[in-house]
């Protein structure tokens, strides 16, 4: 099992650090393009939410991103220092009343692009698992 952790100050442009982090993981562990594409979207959406909504862009607060590589899966955990949110009560962005809204698609994408997702710590932390087979 391999584990890598980085702490990211809550600045919007730091999403590039996450993109580089995922690119490096793809190279190092030879992720296939499908898994890589899903990881890139789901993890960057999650960190974007953690920076903007969790930590409310306060740069002295960090987002913790951890990758755990196991034999058959790769798991990413994203944790912020905010107040959490009600992850069981989210609108469906594909329903007619929401489809034209500008936002509200990030968590829907996360849930649909990873194989397992779980929110803990009142929504401050989310774990996303992608199967490698």
């Amino acid at each position: 099992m391999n584990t890598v952790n980085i702490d990211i100050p809550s600045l919007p442009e730091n999403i590039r650090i996450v993109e580089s982090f995922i690119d490096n993981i793809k190279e190092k562990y030879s992720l296939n393009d499908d898994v890589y594409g899903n990881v890139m979207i789901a993890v960057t959406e999650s960190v974007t939410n953690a920076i903007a909504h969790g930590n409310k862009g306060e740069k002295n607060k960090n987002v913790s991103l951890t990758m755990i590589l196991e034999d058959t899966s790769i798991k990413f955990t994203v944790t912020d220092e905010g107040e959490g949110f009600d992850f069981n009560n989210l609108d469906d962005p594909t329903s007619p009343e929401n489809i034209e809204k500008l936002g509200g698609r990030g968590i829907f994408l996360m849930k649909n692009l990873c194989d397992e997702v779980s929110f803990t710590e009142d929504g401050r932390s989310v774990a996303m698992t992608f199967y490698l087979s």
Partner: protein
Amino acid sequence: MVDIKTTKENDICKIVAVGEVDASSSIELDNAMKSAFETEKKIIVDLSGLEYISSAGLGVFVSHLEDIRSGINLVLFGLSPSVLQVFELLGLPQLIQIASTEEEALNKLN
């Protein structure tokens, strides 16, 4: 990081986006789209060089639905399978025209 170029040939405006439209760089796509929608009637967007698009990037296209309804023609083309998958997951092809190739995009304009 995203690199965006806008060109105009005859009466057709073409926007080419290359790279990653994440939450941060979606502002650059938004600026290019806003400028185009202010003056143009026929817009095609080449996304063949796009590695991924975030929900913020999708929001840029959704923000112009009113303009599209008011008669401005927008067609996206060249989406990679993973980018197209995101549009389809969210049901956006029912709101925004998507073509495979530039030729098909130009045909959809007419």
